[in-house]
């Protein structure tokens, strides 16, 4: 293998594709992209592919296809031009399409790099992607049925807040799901709704949050309670499923897709 190839960190995975690899070779060899020396670039390209195969790395079909394209262009350049008029008409430079593709690819590659430099939401900048409590406490907003997603989100938020468990302080009895179910049902007795947060006293620890989550899922499955929310990420309300008066108007009567 030539030194030109060895000194370069041969990893096709460093390249997004054959066009990326070719651009790299052109830049590294300071070649003129409008007058690519096909023999040389094909030689280097194939050496890299060989090296890949020697390393038992899977060479993606796209890289092999480009090898074929390079060889094809090279062979066409070697053909003697019999009729000079031919060049003027149909047969442009056999390299032309490749050059256009390389330049076009480079354009989007640079655009991608520029875009990556923007301050991204969730990376450099953060917003409030949740409705403010003011929006959800009005009580006038239409209630939407709560799905599993909202439920899990609410618990995730709680878990983030909840401190790490103090392992030895946890008593097994305190963590029984059936006890928790009974506790929720007791809380609901004689009330027509219960805010989800009321299930927790002060700052719950993780096991408590998890057990409460399981108890809620169980109750929903048994169709003993229904969960409603006035807006995404608003307060989740627990209603007894059997009730004297109908629940407020909602999109759907029950927990749709649980």
């Amino acid at each position: 293998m030539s030194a030109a190839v060895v000194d370069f960190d041969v990893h096709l995975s460093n390249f997004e594709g054959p066009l990326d690899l070719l651009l790299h070779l052109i830049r590294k060899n300071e070649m003129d992209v409008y007058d690519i020396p096909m023999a040389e670039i094909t030689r280097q390209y194939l050496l890299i592919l060989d090296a890949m195969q020697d390393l038992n790395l899977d060479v993606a079909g796209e890289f092999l296809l480009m090898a074929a394209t390079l060889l094809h262009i090279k062979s066409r350049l070697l053909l003697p031009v019999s009729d000079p008029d031919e060049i003027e008409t149909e047969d442009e430079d056999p390299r032309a399409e490749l050059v256009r593709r390389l330049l076009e690819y480079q354009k989007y590659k640079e655009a991608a790099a520029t875009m990556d430099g923007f301050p991204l939401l969730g990376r450099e900048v953060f917003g409030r992607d949740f409705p403010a409590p003011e929006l959800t406490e009005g009580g006038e907003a239409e209630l939407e049925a709560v799905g599993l997603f909202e439920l899990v989100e609410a618990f995730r938020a709680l878990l983030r807040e909840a401190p790490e468990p103090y392992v030895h302080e946890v008593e097994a009895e305190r963590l029984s799901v059936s006890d928790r179910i009974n506790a929720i049902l007791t809380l609901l007795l004689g009330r027509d709704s219960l805010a989800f947060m009321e299930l927790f006293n002060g700052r719950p620890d993780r096991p408590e949050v998890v057990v409460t989550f399981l108890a809620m899922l169980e109750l929903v499955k048994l169709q003993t309670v229904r969960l409603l929310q006035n807006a995404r990420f608003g307060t989740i309300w627990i209603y007894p499923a059997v009730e004297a008066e109908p629940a407020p108007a909602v999109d759907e009567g029950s927990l749709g897709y649980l």
Partner: protein
Amino acid sequence: MDISELKPIVESLVFVSPAPLRPERIAEALEIDRGTILEALQELQADYQRAGRGFVLQQVAEGFQFRTRPEYADWVLRLNRNRPVRFSRAALEALAIIAYRQPTTRAEIDYLRGVDSGGVLKTLLERHLVRILGKKDVPGKPLIYGTTRTFLEFFGLRDLASLPTLKEFSDLSPAEVDAAIASVPGVAPHPQTALDDA
């Protein structure tokens, strides 16, 4: 209502909105003309910029939204224990192609990148950065893709027109790309036969 009374009201409305708020919606809610609302928003924007605050008022996705200053990103990430959003190079390339060329097809993206983009396209759809616009009226009726409002929000762009202009090395017209896609077996490569051809 004069602008000094209007400003805190507009401020509170932008503040409670979970997504960038369009001036039109504020105008509608307050029954005040859009121009005055826009003026209030621009004054607020300047106030926040000046005051060295933890967040600023940004014009994004055809609306206005409060966002934290980029220099506080590390602290926010530490508080939320969230991993920052990351994009692979492949996803960014595909996204750039879709953003600049929309409406565009999967075949066009594959051709321009020189590699299969099915996987990244799926990721972009899942992240709601890209959406299916419909079908192209050509044989095979391929799906056509474009960027979403979420894309603008993520990249902090006011609208599609505020994408930076591409450096014009060359310009392949959509027709040229179509022709090339039709003539090059690049879309579904069969390496063996291709090599034999050469």
